[in-house]
């Protein structure tokens, strides 16, 4: 599990740096905590997305870039960016990356 968590953090940091157009070294990990999400979409559904209503254990990953905090939600097999400019994003599946 620690490896999967680290992989999720690395993947999220890479994704955020790309979105913001900055270096990964400018994206700092603020916190990583285990969370039970309310559904298989990790409480971060896309528009028009349905998800299994099963409690899903994972991690909430908070980054700080500049003065702004960004939240990712992850499990061993998926990664989502939560409420980024009002939208949720499903990052490429970890198992496929």
């Amino acid at each position, binding site marked *: 599990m620690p490896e999967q968590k680290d992989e999720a953090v690395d993947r999220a940091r890479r994704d955020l740096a790309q979105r913001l157009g900055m270096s990964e070294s400018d994206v700092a990990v603020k916190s990583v905590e285990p969370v039970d999400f309310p559904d298989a979409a990790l409480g971060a559904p896309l528009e028009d997305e349905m998800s299994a209503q099963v409690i899903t254990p994972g991690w909430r990953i908070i980054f700080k870039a500049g003065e702004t905090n960004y939240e990712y939600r992850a499990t061993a097999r998926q990664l989502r960016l939560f409420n980024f400019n009002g939208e949720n994003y499903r990052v490429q599946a970890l*198992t496929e990356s």
Partner: protein
Amino acid sequence: MSRNNIWVHVTIALALILIAAFAGGVRHWKKAMERSSQLVPYPKQQPDDRENKADDEDDADKVEVLVRFRAGTTREIIDRITREFNDEVEDRIESVDGLDIIADEDGQSAADVVAQYQALPEVEYAETNSEIVLDHEDRGRKHVHADDELFSRQWGLANAGENGGLAGADISAMRAWSVTRGSDQVVVAVIDSGVDYTHPDLTKNIWTRPEIIKAYEDDDLGAVDDQHGFNVVDDDGDPMDENGHGTHCAGIIGAEGGNEIGIAGVNWNVKIMPLRFMDGDGAGTTKDAIEAINYVIDRKRAGVNVRIISASWGSNTRSRALEDVIRKAYDEGILFVAAAGNASSDNDETPHYPSSYNLGNILSVAATNRNDQLASFSNYGANSVHVAAPGEEILSTWLEHGFTEKKGTSMATPFVAGVAALILSQNPKMSVDDLRARLLKSVDPILSLKGKISSGGRINAAKAVGAE
């Protein structure tokens, strides 16, 4: 006292002693009968002398199965079949047409004998014989105990108060099973991430399209070989589960009961129609959900007796199209059982779809824990959430032929779908309105649910099938 008088008194005294001894014997025999009725030796006899003991030991080793032959199967045909299998009809259940108790005479296992009969076109269903005992907490009420290996962990079906739980905080499945354990004539569509239809505890209860039903025709895809259902994600006829969630839900509804392995479903006999619209992460699109429901409606119209959709999914996004297709399912007599959601929120204030659509065939389901409390994560709604069912620490079937515990209103939903299927096994023609009303009326009122959901109760399978 004269000598003659003494003999009169002695005679009277002896007579009184004999009467008392006889009366005591009757009480003793009566008590013995009562004790033996607590373990109904169905249909075996208790050995009553040494000469019969050897025969009875042989009988004890005999495998017996319950077989119901389809209407129109004559006694001659039944006799011929049993002769060919080297079996014997032990008894007939006169109150149920075509139901016989059949004893195996050549040392096969119960599972093999059941499989042998199940494969015959003349047979509606075959199942192992289960011990029927009286419920010691509710004297006089019959219940059927499942011999499945992990049954003691299925608190939602039978809660004896383990792990800090509340005894009786369950759906009273064992009492319901004394009346019905389901029917393979009832089809339940599990619209989900698919189902592992090869799971050993599910495979017998997976729907297979009968030859007389034409393959599914899709305008874009053409004919789809929907042998066991439909995969909307990959647009083919293979609804194999890549997540596990759908397999878990399917097990709650209809894992094979009484087969000594794994778990028991609410229904021991049922047909699960697997549909896959959610991917390996457990997520899918509204469009694909609509296509899956459309498939179920099509199959219903084609002649498949699919009367229930179990929908353990949702979101907060309202879709008129999704609502329309569920309404169409209502027109076809299909009950739509939906998860209320896991945000600990009030659906009357913040609706959750599809469970919050105000349609006559929708039952929105909240989750309870092993203490009969509303689960901390469960959504609720005094108007828009209707019933509750066990949804925490729920053990069921999983990928790689395994078993695992999950929690969520996802798990509560198939309990309700399963009880609906039990009701239909008794009343195949019941309308969807009556079916929904029966489920709502047969809840156990629970204090923690009062004012939280419209029925104020957790479902009770025994009440639903008239076992109480």
